[in-house]
Structure formats: C-alpha cells, structure tokens
C-alpha cells in the first residue's frame, strides 16, 4: 500500500511537470496552429534564470528565494517567447510549416548560445533544505518535492483557467481557438491574444524549467529534450487547445509512466507511446480536443 501511494504521488508530481510544459504548447497550437519546437528553449531559459537568481542574486536559498527564482524564470521565458513571437513567428503569418521549422532553428540557436556561455555540463540548482525532506502519510514515506510540483502546477492551472474564463483577453483567446478567422472578422485584435498566449505559455514553461531542474538535479542547455517530446505527447493525447485536456492527459501519462517503470525499468516511455497510439486510433482529436487546423 505504501509503495502504491508513493508511486501514485510521484506520478502525479511528474504529471504536474508535464502539464507545465504542455499547457503553453497546447494553447499556442490551439490558437495559432504553431507547433512550437522552441518551447524546450523557454524551459531551458527559465531554468538558467532560476539558477542565476538562486546562486548570484540570493546566494542563500530559502523558500522565498526559490519562489523568486520560479517567478524570475517564468518572466524571463515569457519575455523570450514574446520576443520570438514578434520577431520571427509574426513574419511567417499563417505559414504553419515554416513557423514550425523556424522554431526548430530557434531551439538550436538557444541551446548553442547557452552552451557557449555556460558550458554543457549539468549545474546544480540550490534549493531550500526542506525540499530534501519527506513526509509520512500512513506508512508511506514520500519526498516532499512531489507536493511542490503538484501545488505550483495547480496554482498555474487555476490562474490560467481564470484568465481564460474571466478576462476579456481570455474570452478572445477562447473564441480564437474555436474560430480565429471569425474573431478577426469581427474586428477584434487577435494579435494581442497571440502575444498573450505566447507570454503565458512561456511563463508556464519557464516555471516548469525551474522545477524540472529540481526534479532532475541540475540545469544544462540540453535538458529540455525529452520533456518537450513528452509535452507533445501530452498535448496530442489531451487534445489541441484544451487546457483541461492537457491537465488530464499529463496526470494519466505521469501516473502510468511511474507504474510501468516500477515493474520494468524503462518500460514507462514505451507505455506512453502505446497510450498515444491507442488514443490516436480511437479518437484522433485527443481526449478533449475539438479544433483541427
């Protein structure tokens, strides 16, 4: 029973990290039809900013400095996303394949620049000491960092859903996901919604990057690789453009991955691809997906 609980909570924690990567991908794709390969770069930029804040700005890690590192990572990644959208994506308006290709180029350049500046080695991100502790639930001993991932992802999910639900820009984004041409035909500035979505997506990925460096014990220019691919899988399984779908798919994939890995090491990655194939064969638009570009 205790092992079951440990695996379950670890799986949910992993799912929370997947969600942070996938949420932006899903929104960006849902609204603009852009397959964003540079999303991994947002993650890495967030992680490096977090590293800078928690080593250079505040050398003694406490809970507050870690929160500051997460917010700084999110903002840096969000701003980078905004700049990329303005400089590169906007110029290739509606050329979806070219937009995807150009983000591949951006991902290469960002990894090379970070590698050139900081080297390609793994650097440890300092965390407050209590991150290393564990809590006891019943007879299960569970490392505390899992709860941090879950908590942060839950806060961001709530925040993003509230923005989508209660603000004017959120309304425009939701309408744009349904039918972008109709929104612009009504004379509403969709471009602003594009920039917002890029910033929000970048922010979530940046925060995710800081947390992922805690999870995988370090920051490096190449850290985003498999996380981005998992992000894509979560987005496809959950349905393009649906935040709730991404959240459900992230949990599903995180939990199955952990349970499969517990029984056979390395089976997790395989089972995830199996889930993907199963979802595609039964419901190609994903669990909660409606849009198709």
């Amino acid at each position, binding site marked *: 029973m205790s092992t079951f609980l440990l695996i379950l909570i670890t799986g949910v924690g992993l799912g929370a990290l997947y969600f942070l990567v996938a949420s932006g991908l899903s929104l960006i794709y849902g609204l603009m039809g852009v397959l964003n390969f540079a999303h991994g770069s947002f993650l890495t930029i967030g992680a490096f900013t977090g590293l800078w804040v928690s080593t250079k700005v505040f050398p003694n890690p406490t809970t507050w400095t870690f929160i500051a590192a997460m917010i700084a990572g999110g903002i840096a990644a969000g701003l980078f996303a905004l700049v990329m959208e303005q400089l590169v994506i906007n110029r290739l308006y509606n050329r*979806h394949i070219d937009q*995807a290709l150009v983000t591949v180029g951006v991902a*290469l350049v960002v990894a090379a*620049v970070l590698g050139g500046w900081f080297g390609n080695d793994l650097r440890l991100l300092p965390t407050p000491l209590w991150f290393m502790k564990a809590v006891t639930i019943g007879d299960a001993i569970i490392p505390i960092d899992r709860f941090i991932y879950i908590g942060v992802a839950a806060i961001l999910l709530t925040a993003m859903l509230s923005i989508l639900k209660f603000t004017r820009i959120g309304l425009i984004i939701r309408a744009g996901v349904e039918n972008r041409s109709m929104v612009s035909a009504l004379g509403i500035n969709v471009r602003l919604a594009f920039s917002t979505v890029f910033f929000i997506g970048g922010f979530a990925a940046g925060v995710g990057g800081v947390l992922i460096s805690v999870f995988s014990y370090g920051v490096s220019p190449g850290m985003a690789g498999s996380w981005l691919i998992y992000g894509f899988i979560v987005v496809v399984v959950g349905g393009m453009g649906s935040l709730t779908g991404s959240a459900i798919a992230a949990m599903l994939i995180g939990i199955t991955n952990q349970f499969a890995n517990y029984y056979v090491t390395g089976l997790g990655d395989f089972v995830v*691809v199996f889930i993907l194939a199963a979802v595609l064969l039964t419901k190609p638009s994903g669990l909660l997906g409606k849009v198709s570009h």
Partner: protein
Amino acid sequence: MLRWKYSRPLLVAVTLIFALLPFIGNNPVTNPGLQQTMAVAFLYGALALTYDLLFGFTGLLSFGHALYFASGIYVTAILINTYNWNFYLAVLAAIIFTSILAALTGAASLRTTGITFAMVTLAFGQAGHVIITRDFGGLTHGDNGLPINADRIPSFFIGVVNTKFLYLLALGILVFIYLAAWWITESSAGRVFAALRDNEQRVSVLGLNPNRFKLLSFVLSAALAAFIGAGMLVVSGGGSPRFASSETTIALLLMVILGGPVTRWGAVLGGILYSVLGTRLNSLSQGSTFDSLPTFIKGPLSEPAFTLGMIFILIVMFAPGGISGAYYRARFKYLNKGK
C-alpha cells in the same frame, strides 16, 4: 527539376569525377580521413533525399524518419552479430523489417494530418530511440553503441587502406538512391504524391485514396532509409543511439531546407554540405580561429549548432527554397531577361 539536355550528362560527369578522385595523383580525396568524411556525407546526402521524398514531394512533415534509418542499421547489425547471418541476407531482412515497421507506425500516424502528424511521428521516433538506449534484451548495447563484427562483412571494406572502397560504396548508394528517387517521383504514383502535397481534397475527388498513397510514400522512403542505414553500418563501423535520435531527423530537415526541397539534387547537396560543414565547423571551433573575439560571442560561435541554426532561420524566413531554389530563381530571371 533537371529538364534541360545538358544537366544529365553533367550529373554523370560529376559522379564520375567523384568516383575517380581517390585514384588519381595527389589530390585531397586520396587521404583516407577525407574519404571517410566524404563517405558519411554521401550517405547523409542520400538520406536527405529519402526525407525529401516524404517532406518535399509528398508534403508529409515527419519527425520520425531517423527511426527507419536506425532500424536499418541495428537490425542488420544484430542479425550479423548475434545470429551470425550472412551480410547481404541481413541487409535484405533489415529492409523488409523496416518496411513492415513503417507500414504499422505510418498507418497509425496517418490518422492525423499536418502538425499533429509531425508530433506523432516524433513520438514514435523517440520510442525507437528509447528502445535502443535502454537496451531491451541486451541486443543493442544501449549508449555504448553496437560495433559490427568485422569478420562478417566483406573483407575489402576493412582497414584504413580500403577506406576508398567505403567511399565508393557510399557514392554507389547515393547514385542508387538518386535513381530510385528519380524513378519514384516521375512514376504515376509520384505524380499522386505531388498532387497530395498541392491539393489533397482534389485527389480524393478524383477517386484516389489519399492515405493509401501517403502510406506508400512513407514506406518507400523508410525502406530506402533502411538501405542507407546498412551502408552507414559498414562505413561507420557500428550502430550508435544518436542515429535514432530526434536530432538526426531534425538534421535531415535542415539538410533539405538548406539545399531546397522538391529538386532532388538540392536535398543531396544540402545533405553533403551539412555533413561536411558540421565536421569542419567542429574542427574550426577547436582551433584558435575565434580567439580574438570577446567571450560572449566566441562561446556560441564555437558551437556548430549556432551557425547551422542561424543559417536555417535565415533561409526559412528570407530565402525559401534554399540553394536550389535560389539557383532556379536566378536562372528564371536570366532566361526572362529582356522580355
């Protein structure tokens, strides 16, 4: 496309010159080191062409092409090493296995279109990479790579003195793939591929099943990639997980964009240039070329990915069509001069 009369003799002449270079007098290609580099470059040129068949000619943006290349490498190597198969039989079996694998994964992926298709193929490719690195059943030796048992491959490919035969083998494979791609794209199925890229709806209105032709294109390019993989196994002396990584597929995409899609020679040229450039930039960055520059510029410049990524972004944004596209634009301008 190479339609004018002198282009075909020109291609034949260029191929012959490259085939003879290792044997004449005192030129750089007589050096085994460069022969090895060129052999790898030829194979990547051929591989880029098989990717162009999918991406350029049929309009399918796949991010899993490396899977079929790696499958060709690993299945051949495993059959030779573990099961003691005859080399040629193993290559044939690898091609058949890869075709079946491509038919299964392709059929699942083709339930989606466009960008989703790209993501799904990426996931399948990644699963292949995971299988190879995790070393299920002890067949692939994971990150250590899988060196080929030298006793089982034809002896004239072994040893530094014989690097020129590897060079010729790679050139031969390139020529074969080029002819195959030529034949495929000019066949009636090839016309349907192009029609699918340009207007899929129209193809189905004409009574043809788009998915069947997409799958055909997918399986054909995978089978050719597996064949090139068997060549790569001999040339590089073994399998390595990096052949299956998504970076390899992305490199193929870069090659095709660099050389220009849908022109056949563009993809080949792009593949050869990218491969040689990758090696050269690596040695440049280890030298002292950039020493006079300030550190914050020198760092990124010493990473080949920086230069390649920048070139890639600039081509996509400002020069769609790559090298061959620029050539045809210039030629078009020249022919229309004075009209």
